[in-house]
C-alpha cells in the first residue's frame, strides 16, 4: 500500500510488490543474496509529495499503460493511521537552575620528576668516597651568521 500516489497501482504499488516478490523468490532459489546490514531511518525530504510512478534503476523501466485503472480520488472515508500511542521515556531539557557554569579550564601544573642524588653505598661510606656531581650539560653551539 502506497499513500499519496497519483499514478495507478501498476505504476506505483505494482513495481514495489514485484520487486519484493521477485527478490524473495530469487533468494529462495539461491539466485539473489540480500545482505542484511544496519539501516538508517527511511525518510524523504518532502513526504507529502504525490508519487506518479516508481522505477528501480536496476529493474528496467516501469512504463504505465493507458489501459490502467486510475487512482480513485473520490474516497469519503477517513484513513485510520496506526500511530504508536505509547509514551516514551523523554529526557527533559536542562532548565535554568540545572545549567552548569563551566569553569575555564586552568592548565594544571604537573609535577616534573627531578633526578635525586643516589645515597652512598656501604663501601663508599667505609672508604669515604664522595660522588662527583653530574657535569652540566654542554650548551649547544650558537650558530653565528657567516660573514663574507
Amino acid at each position: 500500500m502506497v499513500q499519496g500516489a497519483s499514478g495507478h497501482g501498476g505504476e506505483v504499488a505494482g513495481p514495489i510488490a514485484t520487486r519484493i516478490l521477485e527478490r524473495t523468490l530469487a533468494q529462495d532459489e539461491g539466485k539473489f543474496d540480500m545482505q542484511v546490514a544496519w539501516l538508517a531511518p527511511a525518510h524523504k525530504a518532502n513526504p507529502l509529495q504525490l508519487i506518479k510512478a516508481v522505477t528501480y534503476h536496476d529493474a528496467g523501466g516501469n512504463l504505465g499503460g493507458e489501459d490502467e485503472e486510475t487512482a480513485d480520488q473520490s474516497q469519503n472515508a477517513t484513513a485510520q493511521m496506526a500511530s504508536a500511542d505509547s509514551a516514551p521515556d523523554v529526557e527533559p531539557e536542562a532548565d535554568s537552575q540545572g545549567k552548569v557554569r563551566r569553569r575555564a579550564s586552568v592548565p594544571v601544573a604537573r609535577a616534573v620528576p627531578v633526578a635525586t642524588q643516589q645515597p652512598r653505598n656501604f663501601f663508599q661510606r667505609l672508604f669515604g668516597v664522595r660522588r662527583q656531581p653530574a657535569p652540566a650539560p654542554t650548551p649547544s653551539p650558537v650558530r653565528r651568521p657567516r660573514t663574507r
Partner: protein
Amino acid sequence: MSRRSINPRLRIQFLALLMLMGMGTLGLRLWWIQVAHGAEWTAQLRGSSQATVRIPSVRGEIKDRNGLTLVQNRGSYEVDFYLPEMVKGYRERFGSPPLTEYRATINGMPKDQKEPDIIKIVNGGIIPRLNDLDLARDYNAGKLQRHYRNDTEVPFSYIKDIDFPTMAKFSEHDVGLPGVDIAIKPVRSYVYGALASHLLGYVGAPDDINREEARKFTFYQGDVEGKSNIEKSMDEYLRGKPGVRYLRRNAKGTIDGVLREDPPKQGANVFLTLDTRIQAIAEEALRAVSRAGAVVVDPNNGNVLAMASVPSFDPNTFIPSIKAKDWKALQKDEGDPLVNRAISCLPPGSTFKLITSLAGLRGTKNLAGAKYSCGGGVSYGDHFFRCWVAEKHYTHGTIGLADAIKVSCDSFFYQYGNAAGIQSIDAVGKMLGIGEESGLQLSGEQTGNMPGPEWMQIHHPQERWSQAQTANVSIGQGYTLVSPLQLTMAYATIANGGVCYYPRLVDRVLNQDGSPVLDEHGNVAVPQTPRVRSDLRQEISPDKIDLVRKGLWLEKPALRRPPTVATKKTWRGLRVSRHLIIRSMSSQ
C-alpha cells in the same frame, strides 16, 4: 644454697610450660570467639552493616525465525544520585539542610509542605566538585525536585549512557561525594537500526515504580519495560529476574566490599516468524516512496515473513531515553515515521473486489456463471457510477467473474455486489478478518471498516443504506477501510484454497536453556501451531474459490490494441504473484 641447686634446665622448662599455657589460653579464647560463636558475630555484623543493591534484570533477546538476533543488550554506565543519601550526607556535614515549600494535596485539600531543597544541595555540594573534574552536565532541576518528592526510593539518573572516557574519569578520581555512584545497566540495542522498527518497538523507564519492592533495597536499580509493539506485548516473557548484591559497610558507614551476589536471570528469548532478509528486501523496496506499508506472509500458516513501513525511525534513539528535541522532531515530522502503515487502514479500492467476488459465491448465492454488461457505468437512483474504463473511452462489454477480476471492471462489480447483497459481502469480509483485530498485539493497530446497514445506523444515523452504497463498497470505496495486513491475509486465503489464518508474528518463546516457556497451567505459553480464523470452504465450494483464483492469474490484455512491452512490464507483478501462489499450493 638451695636457690643455686635449682637446675637451670628445669627453669627453662617451667618457663616454656608457662608460655605454652598462655598460648593455649589465647588459642582457646580465639576458638571460642571465631568458631564456637562465629555465626553469632557474623549475624551481628551483617545485620548492622549490610547494604543491598537491586541488580536490574536482563531482558531476553528478540530473534528472527532463523535465530538471527535483532535485539540484544549492551552495558551502559550512568551516574546516579541517591538523593536520601545526599541529604543525609549534607546533614552530617553542615547540619539541617535548606528547605523548600511546595503545595501538596492532602485528603483533597491543598496544603503547604516543606522538604529539603535538593536542588540547592546538589548545586551547592555536588556540582562544584563534579565541575572541578569536568564531569558536571546540565540537568533538569525541576525534574530532580519532583523525583525527590515522588520517587525517593529510586536513584535519579544524572547522566545516562556515559562514554568510556567519562566513566574512566569517574573511576579514576574518587569523587568522594555521598549519594553519587556509577551504575552499570543492561540497555537495549537494536542491531540493525531502523530495520523492522515498527514491529520491534522500544523500551523505557516504567510508568509506575513498585515502591514495596524498592523499599526492600538500600540502593534500587529499576528495570525498563516494553513501551510498544513486540517489546511491549512480549514484556512478561522478555523480562528477567533481578539480582541482589550484598555490600559490606564499615564502622564509618562507607561501603568497603561485596559480601556476596545473587546474579540476575536473563529473560526468555522471543523468536519471531520474521525473515530478516525478506524484511530487508521489503524495506529496501519501500524506500522508493515516501509513505507506504508492505506485508509478506506465508499463506500456508499465516506466518508474517516481513512487515515494513516507511518512513521509519531508529529505535536506538529511545535508548536509554529519547532527548526532548528528538521526540519533538519525530512528532512534528509530516511523514509520521512512528505510524505503522502495514496496520493502518485506508480505502482498498479495487483490491477489495476479491472479497466481493467471494460474496457472490457463498452459500445459496451462485453468481459463478453470472455475466453483466459494462457500458461505461451503472445508474443507481439519480447517481451514475462510472467504470474506470469510461475515462479511456472504452467499454468492457458483457463479461463473467474471472474476466471482470482480470480487467477490474467496476460496472461488473457494481451489479455483482448488489446481486450478492451487502450482508454477504459483510459476512465474507468478517470471515477474512476485515474490520477485526489481527491478534498480533501491535501498538495502534487499526481494525478498519466493513460498512453495512447496521454499521451505517451506528456511525451515520442520518444516512440510509441503498444500492448505491452497496455498489460503492463492492469496489472498495465509500466507507470501506482495510489495512495491508488484512488484505494480505485475505489474498493468502485464496492462495491456500480457502483457509483464513490469524497472522502470526511470534513463533516461539524459549528460556535461556532452550526449553519452551510454560504458562501457569504447564502448557507452552506460545504454541507454534497456526490458528485458523475461518474456513471459506464451509460456505464456498473449492471449485468456486478456484474461479476467483483463476481470475487473479489471468493476464490482462491491452484493450483494443496489440499488447506492448509496456503492458507486459506493468503486469509483471501479477505474474510473479501467480508463481508464488502456485509454489505455496504445491508445498501445501
